[in-house]
């Protein structure tokens, strides 16, 4: 009996010991979107980090309905250390409510500004403080069915005239020039509006409007919206008709492009993930090109800047230094980032570090490597555009994609649509909720 008691005592001590040992470790929590492959990210990121940083344990949790769950958790004081948001307008909101830490001093000490692409670093700077790091960056491109193009002897369009010529030939042979749809994500409308604004009115004009030196009611922007309306509603070039656009979702428009029933798609670089998946099934070839310039106002082709998701540090975290260690480690380990991103065709988790083609593994898709190389070069020359979800404040952003549907159906005039848009921008400027726009 005495031996049993002794054994029990030893077991209890061991148990307590292991518990306290575990408590010595700092746990950094990070909730992320639920489409990620948790095993892949644990193997590629979490385990290497934990091994390299004894005393800190990183825990990544895929979370359904991340935004809504975070909102509730923040209100309850139960949010994770690393706050992942879909973008800039959330950061502005979090900052207003005092929920995130200013990392400017830390960034100075650790040299983050040199590690990130310049515009990417600036995107997190609000009134001199650094509040977020982009988790992934993306841009808008023209994705096309190469097999269809080759069969018909088409060259990749670089101007409006070339685009229209190909579109007319496509219609003549019974395929849709373009395909897209907003089922499942109504804000998809903003991708097209943003593309036409940047590639018709030109990035310089868009920039002027973003900083309040130009009005959205100016003719360059009216021309852009009118051109999109002509293409999508009058000509039915997206999916065959305006109504089809409202009936198509991700699966539908990819199936159409990958099976050769549509020729092109104007989409973000997250489309590389869809391209690989769907073209892999149909056996046709895909490729991408920069979006065609839709008027002389736009000059040479540009790449729109976009941050896909951002990471911020929770202001009520008990151990902000540990959290900053995680962020710093990520920014110092390009191979880890690329390893994680390769699981998504480099369409997600592409932290905007300064990459060269050599950084990519030998088996990386050469088309995608080509994009990152061209993107770095072109944006390095200052030929950047502006995506609506990265640079527009919430209210005008929602009006942009919500009210444009009425413009397409002819219920709302282009001038009235843009006048409403300008009014919301004026209100946002007055309330001080505009987002940082990197200087050109």
């Amino acid at each position: 009996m005495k031996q049993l008691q002794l054994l029990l005592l030893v077991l209890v001590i061991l148990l307590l010991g292991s518990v306290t040992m575990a408590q010595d470790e700092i746990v950094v929590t990070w909730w992320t979107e639920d489409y990620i492959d948790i095993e892949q990210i644990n193997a590629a990121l979490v385990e290497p980090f934990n091994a390299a940083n004894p005393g800190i344990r990183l825990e990544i949790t895929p979370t359904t309905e991340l935004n809504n769950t975070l909102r509730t958790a923040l209100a309850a004081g139960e949010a994770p250390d690393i706050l992942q948001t879909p973008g800039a307008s959330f950061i502005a909101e979090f900052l207003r409510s005092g929920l995130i830490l200013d990392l400017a001093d830390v960034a100075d000490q650790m040299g983050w500004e040199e590690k990130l692409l310049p515009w990417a670093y600036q995107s997190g700077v609000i009134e001199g403080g650094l509040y977020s790091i982009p988790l992934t960056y993306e841009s808008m491109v023209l994705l096309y069915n190469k097999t269809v193009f080759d069969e018909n002897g088409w060259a990749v369009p670089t101007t409006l005239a070339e685009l229209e010529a190909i579109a007319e030939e496509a219609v003549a042979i019974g395929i849709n020039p373009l395909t897209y749809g907003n089922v499942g994500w109504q804000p998809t409308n903003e991708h097209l509006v943003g593309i036409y604004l940047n590639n018709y009115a030109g990035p310089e004009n868009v920039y002027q409007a973003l900083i309040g030196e130009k009005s959205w009611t100016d003719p360059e922007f009216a021309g852009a919206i009118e051109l999109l309306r002509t293409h999508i509603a009058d000509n039915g070039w997206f999916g065959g008709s305006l109504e089809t656009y409202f009936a198509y979702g991700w699966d539908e428009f990819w199936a159409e492009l990958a099976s050769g029933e549509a020729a092109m798609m104007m989409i973000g670089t997250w489309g590389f993930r869809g391209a690989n998946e769907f073209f892999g099934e149909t056996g046709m070839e895909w490729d991408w090109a920069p979006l065609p310039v839709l008027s002389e106002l736009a000059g040479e082709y540009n790449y729109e800047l976009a941050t896909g998701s951002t990471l911020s540090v929770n202001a009520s975290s008990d151990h902000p230094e540990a959290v900053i260690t995680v962020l710093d480690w990520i920014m110092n380990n390009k191979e880890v980032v690329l390893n994680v991103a390769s699981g998504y065709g480099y369409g997600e988790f592409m932290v905007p570090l300064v990459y060269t083609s050599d950084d990519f593994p030998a088996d990386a898709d050469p088309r995608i490597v080509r994009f990152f190389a061209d993107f770095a070069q072109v944006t390095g020359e200052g030929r950047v555009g502006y995506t609506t979800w990265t640079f527009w404040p919430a209210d005008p952003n929602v009006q942009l994609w919500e009210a444009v549907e009425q413009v397409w159906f002819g219920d709302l005039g282009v001038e009235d649509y843009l006048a409403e848009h300008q009014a919301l921008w004026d209100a946002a400027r007055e309330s001080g909720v505009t987002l940082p726009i990197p200087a050109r």
Partner: protein
Amino acid sequence: MTNSAQLAHHPSRNQLLENLGRWAFVLPVLLINLVVVVIPSVVGLGAAFTDWTGYGTPNFIGLENFQRLLSDGVFFKALQNNLLWTALFLTAPIAVGLLGAYLLSSIKTGQMIFRIAYFIPYVIASVVNTQIWRQLLHPRVGIGAWLADYGITFLDFPIFGTRSTALYAVAFVDAWHFWGFLVVIYLAAMSAVDTELYEVARLDGATRLQQFRFVTLPSIRPTLVFSILMIIIWSSTTFDYVYMLTSGGPANSSELMSTYLYINAFNRFDAGYAASIGMMMSIWVGLAVSGFVYLRRRGWEI
């Protein structure tokens, strides 16, 4: 002085314990109701008078949200759609439910199989139902396209993407999932009707239709009235089918108060404005319920 009067003035220990026992049973549910329903509802109503974004602290702004609501064209479109939705659901599903239940009530063998078959759509998750119907009504690979191959082209168009049909299409899918519920409750009510009444009616020379009108309907009136009231209330808050099939589009043609509330709360960071829309929904439901109470007080046997 009677015993009960004595008891009323001097409740015995047993009586107190009994009361306490009753409260003990009710308290947990009451607490849950308070925390999950009452308190959030009051907070939500309060938020309608603020500029709360969903994060941080709200500021009181009085009736500004309601003033904005009164000049909001999209809100009125949504309200109109809600009223249309209510009208649709008060007619077709009830009619089909009554017919289905009545026909089913005269089937002896295999009745259970039919009841299960009609009820299954009701228990399947709305996410699954919407996916099924999105594929069935798909412009390229759905029923419409298939019928067009045989020369029947009236369904061959993007049903959810066309403004004139979007709301009706969503209402159809929701009604398809809902009428099984009505069949089951009407059937339960009909099976409680005294068969002697049918005997008497038949002897008096009543046709089946007349039996239905003069025996069945009056007998199931409480259930019928209950279903009408629930349809009115549920029509005000209906969300998931519209959100998943059309998100209120295209161009607000299928927008409902609930989907408009959602966009304002979660896309525009305007929880205060969304709360004012929520209050409008509550007022609408309150009016419907008050209407019923008023009619009942007036002596209507409902």
